[in-house]
């Protein structure tokens, strides 16, 4: 039972973060595509903005790893 709970906690840590990242990236991606269409010189900035929410899922992944290795 304890193992199941640990696995569930790890899955939640990654899953919820992944959903949050996906939601943020969908918004940023849509706005970024429009921005690049009008001002291609902002491609670098858009890439950065798009990659920023990924920190959430990476931190979630780190937490999940720590939970599983506890």
């Amino acid at each position, binding site marked *: 039972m304890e193992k199941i709970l640990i696995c569930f906690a790890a899955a939640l840590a990654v899953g919820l973060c992944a959903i949050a990242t996906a939601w943020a990236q969908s918004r940023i991606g849509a706005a970024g595509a429009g921005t690049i269409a009008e001002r291609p010189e902002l*491609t670098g*900035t858009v*890439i*950065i903005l798009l990659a920023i929410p990924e920190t959430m899922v*990476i*931190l979630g992944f780190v937490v999940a790893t720590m939970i599983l*290795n506890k």
Partner: protein
Amino acid sequence: MIVRMSKLEIAGPKELLLEVLEVIRDLGIFQLDEENAAVADGRQKAWLHAQPPDDRVVAERLFLENLRRQTGEIIALLPSLETRESWLDPLAILDTIAATATRHLATCRELAERHETLRLEQEELGRYKVLLSAIDRLIEDSEPRSGLEFIGITLRDASFIERLRELLTYLVNGECTLTTTVAADGTLIGLITAPSSRSMAIRKALNDEQLPELPVPKSLSSLPLQVRVSYLDERLAANRCSMEEIEAELERFARRWLAFYRRINQWLAERMTLLSVTTSVRQTGMCFVIHGWALTNETDILEDRLDGKFSGRVAVERCAILEQDLEKVPVALRNPPYFRPFELFTRMLPLPRYSSWDPTPFIGIFFPLFFGMMLGDSGYGLVLLAAALLLLWRRPSGTLGDAARILLISSSYAVLFGILFGEFFGEAGGRMLHLTPLLPERSGAVIPMLIFSLALGASHVVLGQLLGLITAIRRHERSEAVVRIVTIALIACLACLMTSMFFPSPWLLTRSILLLAGLLLTLLIISGGLLAPLEMIKTVGNIVSYARIMAIGLSSALLSNAANHLAGLTGNLILGVLAAIVLHTVAIVLGLFAPAIHGLRLHFVEFYSKFVEPGGRRFEPLRK
């Protein structure tokens, strides 16, 4: 690195202004500074002002603009041929050129108009020929019947055919036929064959539906239907012949005059650029003063050239760069050949300021390292290496050439890390080739890889803080320098505390570090204000963000292992090889994009924010 710039002031007699500007433009090493022009050495010089163009200058500009428009039109009307380069200097014979250009433009226009008229007639006749051929066939087929009328129409697209059939069925109830064909120019043509008694109703309906009836060309309208086809062929051939003659004449003309007019047009463009620049040059009643920037190591060339050409009548003075000038100094990047392709990444963001750092060498060192650590497979690395060499062979220069060079370096690092991790198209490939992992296998060593990534991140961020510290010291910003030092010391304390979690350490040492961290935090608040601890937390967040090196590396390793496993499950050699190729291709594509984007992000967000100040102006010298 950012090249050192010199602030220059060039002064000389007013009548030499255009010649001086010509020399500056030919050298292409001097950027005019319009903003700085009114202020020299920090003092406003009221007697220096931008000269408004007088009537003579305005007349000259209008004359040149008109001539440029004429020559541009001549070039556009003539066929585009490869021509020799002309070295004519048109300044002395401008009036003659203007008269000749007016005459030649009239000739070219007449030829082009004739050609266009013939082309339009050819198109019209071509469409009508298609219709006539169809009518011929129908006459042959329906010889026994009489009283038929033929209506030709042009259709916008194929979707109209069905609509037209329905309309005709409704109007004449099957008493007519509709045939369609496509003309040589792609127009869809329809032919309606109907009894004469119904033709009026059909024409009215077509008019209501806005389907235009194909008109009979004027030249054919008076001829009987039987002779129209032969006449049409003759007319088409004659037109084609006339068009060929006009084209040959235009080509002959182009061979004789195109190089000349191209040169004139180019000269006019350069001359007008110079004239427009003169409006931003400050002048007095007798002399001019040009303010601007040049690369310090090229300033001597400019001085020598101006001195040689004008025998000391034009003076060049090097001015001191004041603090208020620093924001306006244009930025030129010049790096060793190894780092030069990485300027592509630097150009993706606004340029750094002149007083800041060029991040290109740092990204040149760390980006391939991060990329290699994340991809970490010698097989994938070799594939990307081959792709980079192919791209470099096809496009050795330009943006794609730079991208190929970056890929070449980064994939070499991927091969190196693949050997260290013992991976060749996954861990199974490495075991088959007896690659002994010199580092722990990534798929099984999550925590060690995480610690390694964080340690690398801490080093990278501390390097950024050190560069920021050097900038603060250079600018004599003491409190900023103290904040940087304290931040670095706090990062070191945190690193020591983290280490003490994994290695047994004396209780006293841990307590001492905690006490030191508390003192440093107090110092941080004193020197940087209440927001400084928040900045510190952001810095720690930046370091944790480097965990993505481990996360993406792990996903890359697991993906390649999954590809091998799935290929093995097929149980068939050929199917297995095909599955492995497809799955590894997907893994390589992902392995190219994910490490590249995240490697860039680590630099742009986590690293650059510590020392790069954006907002630099690109160095754009006046040149041809």
